[in-house]
């Protein structure tokens, strides 16, 4: 997997209206592989917390026999975070509250599939 693919995936995701940042995260280490975030949003804490949250939720999903977790969606007052697993990595998108969530989710899934 080369860096060009990572960047192409991120650029496509970043063009979705309302997306303030996107990154590909190494799930085991919880660190960003590549990131394109809006100014003032540091990628490292987002990557660490998103990976941790995803792994914990995946464990909970397995615990209640829901099977493999594919997507995690976090809603907050000011926006959304969508995380989709892509093998050893995960695609993370940070979007404004007003963003079209369906479109963001679709693009995050496409990005994850492109990385597999």
């Amino acid at each position, binding site marked *: 997997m080369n860096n060009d693919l990572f960047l192409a995936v991120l650029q496509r995701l970043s063009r979705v209206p309302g997306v303030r940042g996107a990154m590909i995260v190494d799930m085991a*280490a*919880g*660190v960003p592989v590549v990131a394109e975030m809006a100014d003032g949003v540091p990628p*490292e804490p987002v990557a*660490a*917390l998103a*990976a*941790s949250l995803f*792994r914990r939720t995946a464990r909970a999903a397995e615990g209640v026999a829901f099977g493999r977790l594919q997507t995690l969606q976090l809603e907050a007052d000011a926006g959304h975070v969508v995380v989709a697993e892509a093998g050893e990595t995960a695609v993370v998108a940070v979007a404004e509250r007003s963003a079209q969530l369906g479109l963001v989710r679709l693009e995050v899934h496409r990005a994850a599939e492109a990385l597999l």
Partner: protein
Amino acid sequence: MRREDLDRVMAALREPTRRFVQEARVRTCLVVNGAGQVLGQHGFTRSYEIVNIAALAAAAHAAAGALAGLLDAGRWTHLHNDGERQQMFLAPIRTPVEELILIAIFDEDSSLGLVQLFFDQLVEQVQQLPEFQHAAASGDQASFERDLEAAAHRILSTDGPGGA
């Protein structure tokens, strides 16, 4: 460091290390000084040979500093050892008084990113402690002997060095 100073420093580090273990989800957290003296600890510390780990971490810290100097790489920020089941994170905490070393041992419950994230917060908390605000007396022979005596006392005491 005198015995009473050591007790005061250990008490001051108790809450920051507890919070770090809880938030970063590490198994064990140790804070040691450059001499390998344990100043703070929290987590499953009884699972490990704490004194040996502290001494080896201090040695690794010194070696990493020397290596960084040889490579003209400046001061190092952390060492990460990724084992099969457990990982170790070693990083300096710079204070006006002295440079401390954090040793964090963690497994799949945490990650390097998470440890780094909460390490930055730990550093801020430690740097704000009054015990690490002002440079103390120089490391002369008397203070070295006090350090040695305090460390020996802790190792030989039946209570152990405290912690979780």
